[in-house]
């Protein structure tokens, strides 16, 4: 796939797509193509197994295509990462696209048994997953309000359908509708915000906004500032930052467990990555009031997430509040706005992806799932997932490996050494201390102390034995995991521990990746 026409002037800010740009875009194109292929395959041969294999193949191909820009180039010149004004596939975008594709891979595997395996008709799920991943990929690569909105809508619309996929069951349907309303609302806010920024500056390109604001006499006026605030609010809904977090626990609880994993990782991660790019490229971090507001939001998010998690008795709700708190931690690193901050956010986000996928993976594996019978008729064996705290009583004594995986994930969320979560939190605190953000850093410390309570509560429950467990575990709701699921969880734990002990490899990658943003 070497560039054929590398001699061409790569003035690609105009809409003249050349082969070179197609090569650059190939990870996203392959995702889109995979969605089409999977749809056609499902139309002609309705069976979930080949469909899933095709999906996985598409994801693997797209992942491989990420490495194209790193091939030794035959002739002079490397393809420009900027493809039209809309998308920029720089190393920053490539790294996070890789993360999103990998997470989608894990979720696709977790979905298979959960939605009934070969017995059910859940092919459409994979198309939606691929489209959502494509939306995420577009988001992390977008450098323009138009692509921002396109990616966002692609992601959100796929997610409504995914959340409400078991559509004859009450909770997922409720969660889907809640998500639909809130996502629509937040898109509205975003659009209005973009319009206001456009009204002041007359451009929708992040870079141009940045260069205009860099001029000494130019600052955001009331219009632009209000626009920026609306954008932050709209993104805040997606990221479930306090005070825009109300929907999170309900949706997390109601959605099928693997889809919850997807929302917690891909959807949130892509938005955060985009926000960071916007802030750095468009120079939004120079606005004192916005950064001050964001630091207040970070403090509120950490405290509210951790405190509310204490009151929950449902694992999915605890994890939902925990993910709110984790996003608050991320925001602390985010607020440093320098090279270290980007690295910190990238490392923490990677750790967060691995951990959340692992945690919800365990919930998935333990749940019966929705076994579809005849087409469209989901008379699931389970009205709910195995998500009550009591379902986990004494888990260590009858399913030691699964309990071990869950323990590792929870310890990583709590930031205990030997896990990626520890290095991630260390990174974030480092970035915060370096930028002297004392208030958010101290809140982070207090928040993670509070967080220990509920993580330890789950762990204590899993290791409880005898009388402590007997009273709780009346009905043992434990499904048998498939081989693929077990392998996936094992791989996640290995990654979690390996990168927790030897983080230098990932840090080197991040260090090379993140330079070009600032």
């Amino acid at each position: 796939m070497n560039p054929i026409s590398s001699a061409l002037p790569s003035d690609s800010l105009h809409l003249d797509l050349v082969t070179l740009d197609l090569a650059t875009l190939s990870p996203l194109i392959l995702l889109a193509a995979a969605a089409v292929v999977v749809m056609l395959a499902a139309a002609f041969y309705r069976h979930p197994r080949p469909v899933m294999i095709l999906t996985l193949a598409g994801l693997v191909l797209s992942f491989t295509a990420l490495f194209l820009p790193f091939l030794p180039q035959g002739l002079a010149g490397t393809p420009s990462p900027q493809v039209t004004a809309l998308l920029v596939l720089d190393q920053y975008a490539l790294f996070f696209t890789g993360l999103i594709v990998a997470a989608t891979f894990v979720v696709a595997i977790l979905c298979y048994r959960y939605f009934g395996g070969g017995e059910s008709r859940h092919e459409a799920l994979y198309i939606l997953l691929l489209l959502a991943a494509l939306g995420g990929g577009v988001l992390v690569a977008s450098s323009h309000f138009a692509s921002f909105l396109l990616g966002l809508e692609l992601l959100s619309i796929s997610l409504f359908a995914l959340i409400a996929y078991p559509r004859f069951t009450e909770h997922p349907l409720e969660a889907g509708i809640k998500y639909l309303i809130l996502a629509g609302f937040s898109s509205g806010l975003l659009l209005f915000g973009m319009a206001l920024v456009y009204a002041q500056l007359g451009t929708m390109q992040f870079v141009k906004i940045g260069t205009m604001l860099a001029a000494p006499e130019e600052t955001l006026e009331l219009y632009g500032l209000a626009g920026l605030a609306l954008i932050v609010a709209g993104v805040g809904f997606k990221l479930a930052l306090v005070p825009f977090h109300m929907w999170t626990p309900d949706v997390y609880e109601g959605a099928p467990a693997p889809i919850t994993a997807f929302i917690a990782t891909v959807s949130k991660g892509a938005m955060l990555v985009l926000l960071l790019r916007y802030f750095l490229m468009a120079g939004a971090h120079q606005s004192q009031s916005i950064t001050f507001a964001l630091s207040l939001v970070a403090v509120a998010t950490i405290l509210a997430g951790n405190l509310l998690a204490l009151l929950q008795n449902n694992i999915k709700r605890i994890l939902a509040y925990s993910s709110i708190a984790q996003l608050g931690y991320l925001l602390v690193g985010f607020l440093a706005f320098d090279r270290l901050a980007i690295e910190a956010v990238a490392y923490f986000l990677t750790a967060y992806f691995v951990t959340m996928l692992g945690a919800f993976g365990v919930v998935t594996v333990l749940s019966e799932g929705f076994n579809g019978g005849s087409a469209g008729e989901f008379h699931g064996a389970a009205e709910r997932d195995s998500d009550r705290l009591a379902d986990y009583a004494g888990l260590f004594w009858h399913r030691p490996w699964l309990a071990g995986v869950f323990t590792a994930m929870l310890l990583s969320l709590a930031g205990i050494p030997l896990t990626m979560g520890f290095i991630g939190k260390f990174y974030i605190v480092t970035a915060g201390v370096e930028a002297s953000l004392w208030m958010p850093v101290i809140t982070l410390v207090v928040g993670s102390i509070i967080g220990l309570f509920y993580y330890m509560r789950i762990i204590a429950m899993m290791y409880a034995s005898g009388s402590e467990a007997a009273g709780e575990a009346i009905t043992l709701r434990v499904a048998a995991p498939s081989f693929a699921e077990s392998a996936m969880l094992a791989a996640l734990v290995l990654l979690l521990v390996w990168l927790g002990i030897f983080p230098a490899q990932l840090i080197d990658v991040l260090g090379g990746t993140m330079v070009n943003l600032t």
Partner: protein
Amino acid sequence: MILAALIFIPMAGGLLAWMADRWYPGAAKWFALVTAGIEFVLAIWLWLQSASAMALPAHGGWLGETRAEWIPRFGVSFHLAVDGISLVLVVLTAFLAIVSVACSWTEIQKRVGFFYFNLLWTVAGSVGVFLALDLFLFFFFWELMLVPMYFLIGIWGHENRQYASIKFFIFAQGSGMFMLVAILALVFVHYRSTGVLTFDYFDLLNATLSPSAELWIMLGFFIAFAVKTPIVPFHTWLPDAHTEAPTAGSVILAGVLLKTGAYGLLRFIVPLFPEAAAHFAPVAMVLGATGILYGAFLAFAQTDFKRLVAYTSVSHLGFAVVGIFAWNPWSLGGAVMQMMAHGISTGALFVVAGILQERTHTRDMQRYEGLWSVVPRLAGMGLFFAIAALGLPGMGNFVGEFLVLMGLSTSSSVLASVATVVFVASVVYALALVQKTFHGENKHGWQLHDLSGREMVTLFSMVAITLWLGLYPQPVLNAAPNTANSPPAIAVAHHEVNVE
């Protein structure tokens, strides 16, 4: 390389023990015993090797070093080094590892492999804490040892284990987070003045800090060490954790984990922040003295055997705190001695408590009474270690307490005289312990079998060490940090404080 081996041997041994238990039930404890034995032999060998070096007065203090790159992005290296104080603490840790394997021999019946895994990983974490000279590495081990300890209490503990284990974990972990922020603040202050991002202890010793920054950063470290040591307002986790832990957990907690806190005060607080420590020393010494008295007074109010012993730990470690902050040759020697002697004598008392509980299924001293006639050998041991704990001359604790008080009286005679009152209180609790448990008539009709050979060997070796520490303390005192080697500022600053 031998330093890294000291950490990795218990880790590998723990994994082996866990694996072995799956294939050969009953093999786990042998693996654990052999691992702890190898660790102990290695540590002793290292001590003998360097004994001559320690006797020399001006040798710089460091006996061995290992350094490897770890996370170059942050200037973090895998940097281990050993000096006298680390060395004696590692020896103590290795010895108590053997003791705790021996005392769990029949006590632990479920999930044996996982138990020894946790035990040995706690040991590995503590050895790492004693050897690490990179602040990141130190923090890594500091947090790492908590998780297996949590499991030891939470899975194999007694009735109220969930509460105690979670409380222990949150206290230790939470205070550790403050230390993390303090470490990073120190590193970045150093980075801004020199442009070198490093977590290395020796580099950070030269960091120049403004007085207020120094005080705040020191407090961040202090809170973590104060929880672990424990210093009085932060001690509330200790009675619960010690009481609910299985015997081996109590032994390791009292003997090793508490020492990591005192070690931190000695290794980091005073050398890294000499001026702030000097200004803070009066406060810390008052807290230490309060702990000495408070722990002793609460001890004799207890009816639970293990709870009583737990409160005596608060009292004994108070001596170590006072000794460290008085910072003169006598008090430092006394502090190190006190750490060693407390590790052995309190460990032994917990072993006695464990043996009693294993046989009687209770820790309530009101239900014991008159056990001397039933289990004379055990009762003799109980008496010996109770007397050791109260500080009778000829045993290790006496040397430690005496030296601390001697050193303390040169800097604050008032505090020294207040702290001396504890000798009355400790006699009361020690004798109360013996009388309630062993003396009197056997009203409850206990019929117990006396110490087995394994238990005799364990306790006799501890008796021998206590006597050795009491009669010939010089080898341990040689290991104590030499004030001549450490930054002189504290001595000077100290002097100024006293003059004021």
